[in-house]
């Protein structure tokens, strides 16, 4: 058992050690020009090597701009604050049921959004708060939904696990692990059929990677050359089970066998952006590809899991110190003198206020109307009767 634990630890910290040797381009910026508008591009080296399976990995450099980095910082800080606020709301019993927090993994959804458009679809599991925000969701919608209020993104009927945003290509938000992946393949088929120049990204975790339906749908995607990208968000623990205890081959990017794969440092936003752009191109021209994001969650599996019975506190704080995605961007911004430490602090304060306002607003909104219990079981106007509890007195014609 001991050798395997240290292998896992090494795997978690290797990217961090490598990142100390990140070699940026030497360009100094003055603070007179607003960093938020500065679109002039420069390249950044990606510290951790991509690992390809049956595919030539993309270049280890990525193009970015001051504007993009500032956006990354702000968006990730917002997501981080949102998850921390959700933690507090859950503990004060304003959020009930299940709540799976994404903090630590922000680089994955932010990096994805940097390389994708709203023509592309994203479908994921239940750890979807930040993915929803990345797809254009707003903080009040998030908190309202979490607290089960009617102006939540799913009208208060879905809760934490079921966020959707159809107009921005976000297909949710699913409770049953792995079940969203075949759906993603179907979405990709539709995109190809309708000749939309978009790709579907189907996200799942290392636990779900052992579900049979993932392999079934992968075969279909490969057979029909569908523009589907499988993204395994490998945070190394399926609830409380470490990857080496549940998978014979924890190299999830290789599990596609005949489908190529790429392993990406999921805590490096720029690496994710590069990989996702590469994968999108691959999916549009050649067919499916698997991306394995090497990432980490600070919280436990859900709010009922302290997250410390199956991993050490040193491991968690170690990753937070060495590989935190927000800190990485902060360091890069400071290194390239895009903004000062004080500027970044003020952005964090701004974001904190945004979150607090949204929480306050959500706390005041009303729960859904009781008649909504019956709505949307079938299509509106279908006229079917739903029987109330005793089938005699209360029958409802479904709205």
């Amino acid at each position, binding site marked *: 058992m001991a050798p395997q634990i240290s292998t896992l630890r090494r795997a978690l910290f290797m990217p961090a050690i490598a990142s100390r040797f990140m070699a940026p381009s030497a360009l100094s910026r003055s603070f007179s020009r607003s960093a938020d508008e500065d679109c002039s591009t420069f390249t950044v080296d990606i510290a951790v090597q991509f690992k390809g399976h049956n595919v030539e990995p993309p270049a280890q450099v990525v193009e970015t701009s001051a504007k993009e980095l500032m956006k990354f910082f702000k968006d990730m800080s917002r997501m981080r604050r949102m998850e921390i606020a959700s933690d507090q709301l859950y503990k004060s019993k304003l959020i009930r049921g*299940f709540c799976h927090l994404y903090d630590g993994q922000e680089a994955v959804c932010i990096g994805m959004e940097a390389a994708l458009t709203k023509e592309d679809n994203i479908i994921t599991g239940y750890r979807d708060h930040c993915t929803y925000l990345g797809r254009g969701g707003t903080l009040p919608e998030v908190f309202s939904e979490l607290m089960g209020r009617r102006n939540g993104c799913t009208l208060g009927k*879905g809760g934490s696990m079921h966020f959707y945003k159809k107009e921005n290509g976000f297909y949710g938000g699913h409770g049953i692990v792995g079940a969203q992946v075949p759906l993603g393949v179907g979405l990709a088929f539709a995109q190809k059929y309708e000749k939309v120049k978009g790709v579907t990204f189907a996200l799942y975790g290392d636990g779900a990677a052992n579900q049979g339906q993932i392999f079934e749908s992968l075969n279909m995607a490969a057979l029909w050359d569908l523009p589907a990208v499988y993204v395994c968000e490998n945070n190394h623990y399926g609830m409380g*089970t470490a990857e080496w205890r549940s*998978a014979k081959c924890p190299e999830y990017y290789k599990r596609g066998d005949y489908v190529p794969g790429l392993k990406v440092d999921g805590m490096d936003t720029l690496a994710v952006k590069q990989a996702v752009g590469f994968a999108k191109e691959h999916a549009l021209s050649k067919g499916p590809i698997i991306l394995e994001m090497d990432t980490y969650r600070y919280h436990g599996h859900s709010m009922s899991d302290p997250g410390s019975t199956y991993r050490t506190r040193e491991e968690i704080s170690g990753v937070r110190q060495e590989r935190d995605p927000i800190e990485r961007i902060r360091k890069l911004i400071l290194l390239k003198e895009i903004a000062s430490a004080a500027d970044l602090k003020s952005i964090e304060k701004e974001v904190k206020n945004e979150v607090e306002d949204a929480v306050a607003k959500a706390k005041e909104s009303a729960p859904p109307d009781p008649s909504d*219990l019956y709505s949307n*079981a079938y299509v509106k106007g279908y006229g079917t009767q*739903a029987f109330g509890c005793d089938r005699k007195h209360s029958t409802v014609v479904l709205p």
Partner: protein
Amino acid sequence: MPIVNRLCRLGRQIYGRRTFSTQTAAMKRMNLVSAINNALQIALESNPRSYVFGEDVSFGGVFRCTTGLADKFGKHRVFNTPLCEQGIVGFGIGLAAMGNIAIAEIQFADYIYPAFDQIVNEAAKFRYRSGNQFNCGGLTIRTPYGAVGHGGHYHSQSPEAFFCHVPGIKVVIPRGPSQAKGLLLASIWDPNPVVFFEPKWLYRQAVENVPEDDYILPLSQAEVICTGTDLTVVGWGAQMAILHQACSEGRQAGISCELIDLQTLIPWDKETIEASVKKTGRLLVSHEAPITGGFGAEIAASIAERCFLHLEAPVSRVCGLDTPFPLVFEPYYMPTKNKVLEAIKASVRF
């Protein structure tokens, strides 16, 4: 009265007095989790070729039903599986087909559907299609089911009705710790595959004195918990506590209810229910699962057919609504005590 005393009295009222295979056994206060854990221990002790497996069972499981088993019996007998329900059940069928006792856990009943094909097409038909050359009778699938107050769509479902439609398997649902221990051991030793639904809401809530020894309760035998003359009330699992409260309040209103716990849903004890309905002339069935197509429908149709001339009122069903199990609307959805009481009074007034 202090809350503890009140709960104890409620516990004794609900769980009643049982006859067990040994009446002089020592008793121990256990909740549902400990009772199930105890049953699994006994099973693993009695048969060296018995195995407990499922997601996260090794450390004790998400509800702690399998605590201590891996330490006591070894990781080759109590082990984790990856996240693959279809694989878990299929594997269990194979293990049972080789003469072993396979006790598979599906972490929540809401996740059982990928395994549905294996249960229906493989487990239920193995003995039949092989002309009795093979069978997977050693398979028992344990799974927590039912509402908890905040479970939402995928941690609250009661899918028992789907499995009651499958000849070849048995479906068993206990209402409390002593029944759970006896019924689980009976299910494990039963030479047919059994799906055992555990009411998760009662895991810690239900506490009572449970015999410490090895005992079984008979399958396919319903239990009359309280006798009555006006109306027969039938249910199972966590709903029994609700029905018991409704019957008590009914008694205060002058209605004498006969409360029956079905315990085994298929093959179900038609004789006991029929005898009761022939006596009372009225039947009410209640379950958490949605009303349309729920198992209450089978009971209602059967009784209507066999006891038609004895019925004084139509068979009444008080069940969950015909919607997906809701999140914030759970209190509206559930067949609560008041809804049951209304139906009891309506049936008697008919």
